[in-house]
């Protein structure tokens, strides 16, 4: 498994993130769900009710070719 953890990460964590994590932990799971899951229309991606890709590479290539870049599905 590839991870990119470095010890200095901890020092760079904004205090407000830590506070948000603490606050989220105090909420029941059902409340966390209500805050977390949203639905907005995503062009192209939401225009088919079903898609299947034989490989992840096929999926990534499809995203690169078909989705607007601002959706953020393109590879860096």
């Amino acid at each position, binding site marked *: 498994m590839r*991870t*990119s953890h470095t010890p200095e990460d901890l020092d760079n964590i904004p205090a407000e993130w830590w506070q948000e994590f603490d606050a989220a932990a105090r909420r029941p799971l*059902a409340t966390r*769900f209500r805050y977390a*899951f949203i639905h907005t229309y995503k062009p192209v991606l*939401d225009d088919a009710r*079903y898609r299947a890709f034989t490989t992840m590479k096929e999926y990534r290539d499809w995203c690169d070719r078909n989705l607007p870049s601002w959706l953020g599905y393109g*590879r860096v």
Partner: protein
Amino acid sequence: MGAFEYRQATEIRDALARHGVKYLFLGKSGAILLGFPDTTQDADLFVEKSSENGRALADALKELGFELTEEQCEDLERGKDLVQLKNGPFDLDVIYAPDGIESFADAWKRHVEVEGFPVCHIDDIIASKEAANRVRDRESLPRLRAFREWLRNRQP
């Protein structure tokens, strides 16, 4: 199509358990189950790849109201790497081979349970996003890594 609700999450958890489907929540939906405060649009399920497991998944999804043709059920049974479902009560991505995770068995060994929801370990969620290397993943990774630190500090 509305947003994925807690009630629906419990329904899918219970239906998959009834049908004996072996799976894990992955992606940001998995992180949210672990306590990560953020937003997302759909649920990602990492499913063990076997024809038996895929057929059980298809049966469970039909029971939940997903309108699956026989051909689509066969896609699930064959274990295509990614199946995107928007033909049911909520959006669902079924992933058989996520980037960055060696095998389902490895992820299963590390997984955690949250109120009966089987969830990938935060290390696997981060590893899959690092490997996918999309713009949206790059944006969410610093906060996810910070959340991992928070989890480590919180656990005894």
